[in-house]
């Protein structure tokens, strides 16, 4: 006999449902419209009230993760009832009935859940699935492919020959790479195929045209017990080389993403937390200082969260699974990445927050434990999630310069636009949620609409970041007046002789609303006017008035 299908039915408010919240037993008579053959409701399941969720109209820059407001008044809330149906046919009948029932909202699966996130034996999906989930087709079609972006792989070294054999065509710059070894055998780009090669492969999923730099800091063999471990002193030198790279040309700063799939695994590797020489909890440790310096110089720094998640921690964690995002992995100036499968299930080994330096870690999740580089059976650990995210950041950086989006603003936008997983909003397992590149995809440029002085025009901005462009010939001093929707923030930018951007303009409005006014002085010529949604969407009107 086949198993019954368990489900949850979401109903709108009725006084009967509200009363059912406090009843000892749920009576099916409270929902007469659900008297459907094949459906049996669970009388032992007290209906659950779901407060009404609304997208917040206005969100401050620092309010990442607080995207919704909730109204728990009974009459605006909905109510979940549990039941089961015999088979697929019954489910179809129920769904159809619910769709037609004004007192019902939807039928949801009551999926079986376990106490553990996944600890898979083998790979879940492949790098092609990761590419699909990262929207790489759309990203690449919009020029977001890592072009003109350097990605430093801070790891065990890269084997470029192997990457080429796997179809990777990213550039490689040996002159800007670095190795702690003075041997000729292991030059940057020619290290044994290992962890670093996996990371480079995973960066190229989203950023196939980036320029890889090889920083083999985990090949410091002077004191390491194995060939793939290093010391923070090596990482400090590596970071100082990158700092030099960004300091050489202030005017034309290169775009640099730094991918770090490494960390410490146990507090015994460090001085005690209360010792002034401690690393894990100490922002004054020299490595934590140089991380801050490099980010300030313009680098996007990405770190793996670590593999000490309690559900299936790495054995090097030695059963310590509390507060295991140590040191720079939890630095406020980096993006700390947790791991999920291509099915968006948290990998149980992914370290949970709070972070040691910044409690609000991890920042986001990215994909891991997939069949990818074939350096290993699976590209796994937060080690793979980190370069997947770094590749996505490099793709974004191809079109967003540092003046368009500074590292801190990029991190904030990644947090704010992440696909929420786990608990609503930020949580210590998933951070702000799963990396979401869709919000960064630049819409194709809109045509410039010529307007006449005095002619009222209207338009519509569909989402945050969208713009509309107009052009007017000025023969007298003018006022440009924008009127947009309440509770939204649209900005007005004006530039003579060229299209303004959010960073290049002659004048702009500074209100926090969608109502703005700019005066154009008597300086004859052609002026471009841009209406830009800093936050929100809706219709607007624009007028140019002679003073």
């Amino acid at each position, binding site marked *: 006999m086949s198993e019954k299908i368990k489900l949850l039915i979401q109903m709108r408010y009725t006084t009967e449902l509200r009363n059912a919240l406090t009843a000892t037993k749920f009576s099916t008579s409270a929902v007469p419209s659900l008297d459907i053959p094949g459906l049996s409701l669970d009388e032992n399941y007290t209906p659950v009230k779901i407060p009404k969720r609304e997208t917040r109209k206005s969100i401050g820059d620092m309010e990442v993760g607080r995207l919704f407001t909730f109204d728990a008044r009974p009459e605006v809330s909905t109510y979940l009832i549990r039941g089961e149906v015999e088979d697929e046919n019954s489910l179809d009948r129920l769904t159809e009935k619910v769709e037609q029932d004004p007192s019902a909202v939807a039928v949801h699966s009551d999926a079986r859940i376990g106490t553990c996130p996944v600890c898979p034996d083998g790979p879940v999906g492949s790098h092609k699935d990761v590419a699909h989930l990262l929207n790489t087709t759309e990203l690449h079609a919009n020029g977001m492919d890592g072009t003109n972006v350097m990605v430093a792989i801070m790891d065990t070294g890269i084997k470029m020959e192997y990457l080429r054999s796997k179809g990777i065509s990213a550039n490689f710059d040996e002159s800007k790479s670095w190795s702690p070894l003075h041997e000729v055998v292991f030059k940057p780009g020619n290290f044994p195929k290992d962890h670093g090669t996996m990371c480079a492969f995973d960066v190229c999923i989203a950023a196939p045209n980036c320029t890889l730099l090889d920083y083999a800091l985990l090949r410091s063999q002077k004191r390491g017990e194995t060939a793939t471990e*290093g010391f*923070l*002193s090596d990482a400090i030198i590596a970071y100082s080389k990158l700092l030099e790279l960004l300091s050489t040309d202030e005017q034309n700063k290169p775009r640099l993403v730094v991918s770090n799939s490494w960390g410490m695994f146990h507090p015994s*590797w460090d*001085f005690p937390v209360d010792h002034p*020489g401690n690393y894990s909890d100490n922002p004054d440790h020299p490595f934590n*200082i140089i991380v801050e310096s490099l980010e300030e110089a313009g680098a996007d720094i990405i770190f793996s969260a670590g593999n000490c998640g309690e559900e299936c921690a790495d054995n090097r964690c030695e059963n310590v699974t509390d507060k295991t995002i140590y040191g720079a992995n939890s630095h406020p100036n980096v993006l700390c990445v947790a791991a999920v499968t291509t099915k968006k299930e948290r990998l149980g080994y992914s370290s949970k927050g709070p972070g040691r330096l910044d409690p609000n870690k991890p920042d986001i999740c990215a994909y891991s434990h997939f069949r990818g580089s074939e350096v290993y059976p699976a590209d796994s650990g937060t*080690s793979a999630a980190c370069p997947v995210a770094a590749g996505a950041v490099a793709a974004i950086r191809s079109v967003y310069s540092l003046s368009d989006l500074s590292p801190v603003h990029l991190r904030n936008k990644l947090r704010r636009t992440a696909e929420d997983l786990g608990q609503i909003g930020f949580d210590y397992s998933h951070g702000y949620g799963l990396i979401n590149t869709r919000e960064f995809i630049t819409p194709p440029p809109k045509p410039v609409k010529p307007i006449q002085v005095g002619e009222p025009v209207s338009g519509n901005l569909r989402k945050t970041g969208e713009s509309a462009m107009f052009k007017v010939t000025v023969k007298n001093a003018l006022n440009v007046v924008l009127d947009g929707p309440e509770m939204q923030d649209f900005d007005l930018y004006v530039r003579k002789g060229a299209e303004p951007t959010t960073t290049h303009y002659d004048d702009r409005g500074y209100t926090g609303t969608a109502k703005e006014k700019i005066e154009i002085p008597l300086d004859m010529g052609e002026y471009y006017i841009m209406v830009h949604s800093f936050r929100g969407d809706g219709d607007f009107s624009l007028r140019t008035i002679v003073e």
Partner: protein
Amino acid sequence: MKRFLITLYLLPDENTIQFVKQLPGLKEIEIDEDYGLIVISPKRNLYVVRVSGDIDPDKLMSIQPKVKGVHTDVKVVPTKFQENREE
């Protein structure tokens, strides 16, 4: 032998390993010259050297005001997942 990272505050005309080596409190310590003097914060004039030996951080900082911290040189490893197995 224990290894440490010493953070130093150095003015632009002081930022050489030779200058650091002759500083009271530091000239008695084995400084890793191969490692060199590394700038960690150009804005704050902070540098780091790698040293070996037994060091009393409090004593060193009281002798030498240019020393701003004595820190551990932690081992770090890749975060590739290793399943629980005997090493």
